[in-house]
């Protein structure tokens, strides 16, 4: 039985400061609510910061930066866009954004999954890392900009290059699964990433839908064949994406993926000398 509560982030037209809003969220958690709906959110920062409890936070409106920073809860759903630093040092749980989310998404993430319907800015997934079963995932439905997966040390980034612009049925309503028309989702033209892709990567893998010209690869990044194993990984991720954003799976599989991996797990191993002098 889900215990649900609605919190107004802008009561009587006055926007709550992030400190008060987070205080209200934590109070609700202490009272035992496990589904917290925030309405009228307009750019409040740090929503869900450092929350460990297994709760779902649903945000109506556009979330401010650092959404889900140090988060380890169950899920945060945003019916709108999110500013940069989404899922900063994410530890676990699922962050779902029905909109765009800009720069440095999932910086230093150590676990969890981030699903963004729209586009991203630069340095998406910078320095993500993985350990054993903790493997962070970032999926962008649209395209991303420069330095995607920079310094990446683990985890998975998937960029799909889909265009949802015409697929929103009623633009006056918050975007959710039922507000997306699967027939009107289009493909973006290749390439859907920009320069310095995976610069300094030393772990993890990036899957880009469509072709990636070699000149867009950053230092220490190389292209690799998509194997059967990769398809298995992709299948489960894409499955979840399609379920969240009402997207036909055939559309996604209609184009081949390009896989980008590190050249070595020790890119700078031969750069330094430790001999006694």
């Amino acid at each position: 039985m889900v215990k649900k509560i609605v919190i107004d982030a802008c009561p009587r037209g006055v926007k709550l400061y992030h400190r008060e809003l987070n205080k209200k969220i934590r109070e609700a958690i202490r009272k035992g609510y496990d589904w917290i709906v925030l309405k009228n959110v307009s750019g409040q920062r740090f929503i869900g910061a450092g929350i460990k409890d297994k709760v779902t936070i649903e945000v109506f409106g556009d979330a401010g930066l650092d959404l889900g920073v140090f988060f380890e809860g169950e899920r945060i759903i945003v019916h709108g866009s999110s500013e940069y630093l989404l899922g900063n040092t994410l530890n676990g749980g699922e962050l779902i954004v029905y909109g765009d989310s800009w720069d440095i998404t999932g910086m230093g993430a150590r676990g969890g999954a981030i699903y963004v319907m729209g586009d991203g800015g630069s340095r998406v997934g910078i320095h993500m890392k993985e350990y054993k079963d903790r493997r962070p995932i970032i999926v962008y439905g649209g395209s991303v900009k420069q330095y995607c997966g920079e310094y990446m040390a683990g985890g998975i980034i998937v960029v799909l290059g889909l265009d949802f612009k015409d697929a929103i049925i009623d633009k006056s309503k918050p975007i959710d699964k039922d507000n997306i028309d699967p027939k009107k989702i289009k493909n973006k033209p290749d390439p859907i990433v920009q320069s310095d892709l995976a610069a300094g990567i030393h772990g993890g893998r990036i899957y880009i839908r469509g072709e990636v010209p070699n000149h867009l690869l950053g230092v220490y990044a190389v292209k690799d064949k998509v194997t059967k194993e990769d398809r298995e990984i992709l299948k489960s991720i894409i499955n979840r994406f399609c379920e969240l954003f009402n997207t036909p799976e055939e559309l996604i599989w209609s184009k081949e993926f390009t896989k980008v991996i590190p050249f070595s797990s020790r890119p700078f191993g031969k750069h330094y000398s430790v001999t006694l002098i």
Partner: protein
Amino acid sequence: MMDRKLPKYKVEIDYDKCIKCGRCATNCTFGAIVYDREQNKPIVKDTSNCVACQRCVTFCPVGAISITPYPVVYPAHGTWTPYHIRAIDEQARTGRVLLAGTGCDRPYPCVFDYLVWDACQVTNPAIDALREPVETRTFLGRKKRTIKIKEIAEGCYDIEDLPPGVMLSTPLLIEHMSLGALSYNAITAMLMAVTEVGTLMGTGEGGLHPNHYKFKKNIIAEVASGRFGVSPDYLNVAAIEIKIGQGAKPGHGGQLPGEKVNKLISETRGIPIGTDALSPNPQHDIYSIEDLKTLIDALHEATEYRIPVGVKIAAVNNVAPIASGIVRAGADFITIDGFRGGTGAAPRVIRDNAGIPIEHAVASVDQHLTEEGIRHKITIVAGGTLRSSSDLIKIIALGADVGMIGTAALIAMGCRVCQQCPTGKCAWGIATTDPVLSQRLDVNWAAQRVANLLRAWTHDLEEVLGTMGIDAVESFVGNRDRLRYIGPNPHEAQILGVKHAGERIRLGGH
């Protein structure tokens, strides 16, 4: 043949004394002394491998080993010294960046040595620290200019909205040193020592090992550019520090080479075994003071404003305005690390040349913040070669609230400053991740030694404060008037805000 380098030290075994027990060979990790099975005695295999770590000398039961500078001199030259010749030789051989450990080893003048302090004579009485109380307790955290007192029950009062702070029994804490740069035993010993003494230690960027969570009331957790081991549990400690820079390598990140990332390190940092643990040079979410404020706020939010959040910067040219920005960004304390500060590994060219001395940095930050009227808001922690209690006392007088030590604590545990930290071969079991070498450090013994050192310096501080007639260290902070300069450069004294020794005070406002 041409690649052969000149040894730095000469190890000799005096076979008249040697009892052939082989302890020296067992203890040598650098391959200078080995045990020869055929001759049945330890022999010096390659003296060029000797780093003068003194492990063999310490463990030889009969005192048969001697280490001397290699008795071949470089041709005398004032400019082309062995420091440069050896570096050129190595870089010509490998084409690589030279790594170095510990702090800067160049003989730069140390400003601490140019300072002396005042004492009470006739007109003001000294305090006898052995019998009268001298308060050394200090608080780490933000301070308010005014406090409001409210009555919570009849006759019971409490202070309203006090910002988070941590009480330290002494104005001395142990710097950030990570598990990975140092061994598990070394970190455990220092954590035990700070817990016993009642002060703090930094985790460095290595995360926190599950066994170390029990020390969490005495830990400053570091959030650096690699974000290793950062989780909600990791943030539930005494204080949090955002690392922007380190004195030994300002502007440089950090790297733990893959060969040091074994099972223990891998589970603490949350990365696979054998991969490089790379910390990027910048924090990619901090490109401005506003961005810094974002991370400070995020950490405050994640910890529900219960614990202080500080920012660590290296002492660089414009350290004072940067510090001012940090105060305005909402940090609760600032840690400033001077250019002689230590490191597990840094490019030698950066270690030896980048940054400014901590003495200048602290004096200028303290004066700058005071002029701007915001000094009272923040705690300043300063370190980067505090070699003795006198350096601690001088840095407090120059404007730091708390001093921090790193290398001094390692020396207390047996470190001989041989500068081989990046090799991971530390014969003393301190700067290594090798579990076999790590066992060489007896945790209880080392903890006791570090605790003793912290206590001894605190007693020194009490004694000195007593002779100056000051009964609480907090009223000594920034008391530059009790210092005098005896160095060669009057301009330096001016920068430090310290009068020259013998300078007369003009009375009556003329």
